């Protein structure tokens, strides 16, 4: 059997709420034969199972379920009820197996036996470098995780499989029927250990995140599934990228997302979408390209069995999860969420909004008009001295003369009567702070622009033109006739090569070392359009 056929079979088993332990065990027979032909995106993990009761069948079911998580699991089952021996003996099969992750599966109702459990856990952690998952309490340790087995029995409905006749028949204290669901929960720890957490959740809309079909039922009749949506929002907050793959009119679907009062998910939770009438497999590929994420990190949630089957067939690496099964799906498991994870998720959304903003406009003017650019210009003083000096040291690209000034330089020049201005820039996307500097030496009937620079963060907005217009205005008000400026080329400052001519300076002389320009102040300086200028 080709490996992707097995993947499809296993994905189908996952989705079928009637699948049984026997189905998984039958699949395991196929898996054993072809596991060496797993594709390269699979991650390997070695997992050991130590039990105080019979666990035969659990590692096999676990291996099969692991395939659904793009994991190739090598498993080891310790001999029946030999947990202590396997851990205490340095030559045991457990250590020879070299596990990445060990599950210690104990019976919480056997209190006397469990008193030695804590010291066994310590011994195990000190004897190998991998991770341990226990079914009961343990000390705090960075390689130790706790699976609350007792709680899981209650909440999953598998209490009915605990301490049944199977205990008498073979010490299966947990009946085999519960193995598939238990394996899925145990895979949470394996996904984390292997570093295989999925990165992107792709959601269908109709009858997935809301009950009803927006195109037919209309906004009033659809009913958002708040549980599912909240789950998606929570994933988004942990850095998982959210996307939409839906067959709908864009306006209907986006309208519902933006306007329905009970909707928990909103447009700005999503980093990307394909809402159209083309096939969903094409949409998936486009989403993967747009987000620049591999399809093996995608999860697809859609109620429609036809769509599930299609994606399962065409993209075996994508996890196809029917909506009711998302709650118990382990693919998004993570140990701790870092600032970076959260930031990364946000970045995708911001990137989408930035691109959207750019693509709405036919020309630059249009773009600048909607940018809501505001600049503030103020003479340098004690409080801004440090930042101004720093900018002159660091800025390379938009720097006309590349002259560097220390704080003392600036203080001295100011005392000598030089004019030094700082520029603050803000637009609808953010506040960029002090990002521009102009340094002018006033002479008898001309002013000389000693340097003019702008942080590359605020290029492309015409903010530099606002600063220049202000300087020229000031010169003109003082009765000056000419402003002089120079462009001194370096390896890095080509971005400002044409700035002075662009703002109507005339070239006076050009040598290899510098081009000298002059501005005739009898012409009015032109302030750029769409920029609000505040002088302080």
């Amino acid at each position, binding site marked *: 059997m080709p490996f992707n056929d097995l993947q499809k079979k296993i994905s189908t088993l996952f989705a079928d709420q009637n699948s*049984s*332990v*026997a*189905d998984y*065990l*039958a699949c395991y*027979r196929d898996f054993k034969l072809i596991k060496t032909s797993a594709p390269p995106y699979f991650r390997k993990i070695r997992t050991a199972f130590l039990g105080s009761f019979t666990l*035969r*069948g659990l590692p096999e079911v676990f291996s099969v379920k692991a395939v659904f998580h793009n994991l190739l699991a090598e498993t080891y089952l310790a001999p029946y009820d030999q947990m202590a021996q396997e851990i205490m003996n340095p030559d045991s099969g457990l250590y020879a197996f070299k596990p990445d992750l060990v599950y210690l599966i104990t019976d919480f109702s056997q209190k006397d036996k469990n008193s030695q459990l804590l010291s066994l856990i310590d011994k195990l952690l000190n004897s190998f470098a991998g991770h341990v998952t226990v079914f009961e309490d343990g000390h705090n340790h960075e390689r130790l995780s706790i699976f609350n087995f007792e709680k899981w029995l209650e909440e999953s409905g598998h209490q009915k499989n605990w301490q049944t*006749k*199977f205990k*008498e*028949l*073979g010490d*299966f204290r947990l*009946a*085999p*029927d519960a193995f598939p669901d238990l394996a899925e929960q145990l895979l949470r720890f394996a996904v984390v250990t292997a570093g295989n957490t999925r990165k992107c959740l792709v959601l269908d809309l109709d009858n997935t995140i809301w009950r009803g079909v927006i195109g037919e039922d209309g906004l009033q009749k659809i009913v958002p599934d708040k549980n599912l949506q909240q789950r998606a929002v929570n994933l988004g907050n942990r850095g998982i990228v959210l996307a939409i793959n839906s067959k709908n009119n864009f306006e209907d679907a986006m309208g519902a997302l933006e306007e329905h009062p009970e909707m928990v998910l909103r447009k700005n939770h999503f980093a990307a979408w394909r809402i159209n009438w083309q096939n969903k497999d094409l949409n998936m590929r486009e989403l993967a390209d747009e987000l620049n994420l591999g399809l093996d990190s995608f999860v697809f949630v859609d109620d429609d069995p036809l769509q599930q089957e299609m994606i399962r067939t065409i993209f075996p690496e994508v996890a196809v999860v029917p909506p009711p099964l998302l709650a118990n799906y382990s693919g998004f498991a993570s140990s701790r969420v870092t600032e970076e994870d959260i930031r990364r998720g946000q970045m995708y959304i911001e990137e989408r909004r930035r691109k959207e903003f750019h693509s709405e406009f036919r020309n630059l003017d249009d773009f600048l008009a909607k940018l809501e650019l505001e600049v503030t210009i103020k003479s340098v003083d004690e409080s801004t001295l440090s930042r101004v000096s720093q900018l002159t040291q660091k800025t390379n690209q938009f720097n006309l003369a590349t002259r560097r000034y220390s704080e003392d330089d600036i203080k001295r020049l100011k005392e000598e009567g030089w004019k030094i201005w700082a520029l603050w820039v803000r637009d609808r996307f953010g506040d960029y702070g002090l990002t521009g500097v102009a340094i002018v030496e006033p002479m008898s009937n001309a002013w000389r622009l000693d340097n003019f620079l702008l942080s590359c963060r605020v290029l492309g907005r015409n903010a530099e033109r606002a600063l220049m217009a202000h300087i020229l205005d000031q010169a003109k008000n003082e009765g000056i006739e000419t402003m002089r400026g120079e462009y001194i080329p370096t390896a890095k400052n080509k971005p400002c090569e044409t700035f002075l001519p662009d703002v109507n300076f005339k070239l006076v002389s050009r040598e290899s070392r510098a081009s000298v320009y002059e501005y005739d102040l009898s012409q009015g300086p032109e302030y750029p359009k769409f920029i609000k200028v505040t002088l302080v």
Partner: protein
Amino acid sequence: MMKLGEILSKVLGVDAQSITDATSPTNVESWDSFNGLFLVSELEKQFKVKFTIEEVTSVKNVGDIKAVLQRHGIKL
């Protein structure tokens, strides 16, 4: 509802055609004690019945399984 032959085939990994009433742990290598219990689990699930411990331990071959199922009202 899956037929008995399909269930046996799935659990034991044997060809459904080769199964007779005499098929038992003595002549099928894969029918060990563990697969025997997985078989019980699958029969209970597919036929929606619950066997007692006595019924399970009394079964020696496929013929015995059929008798037990029939006693539970399953028509085979």
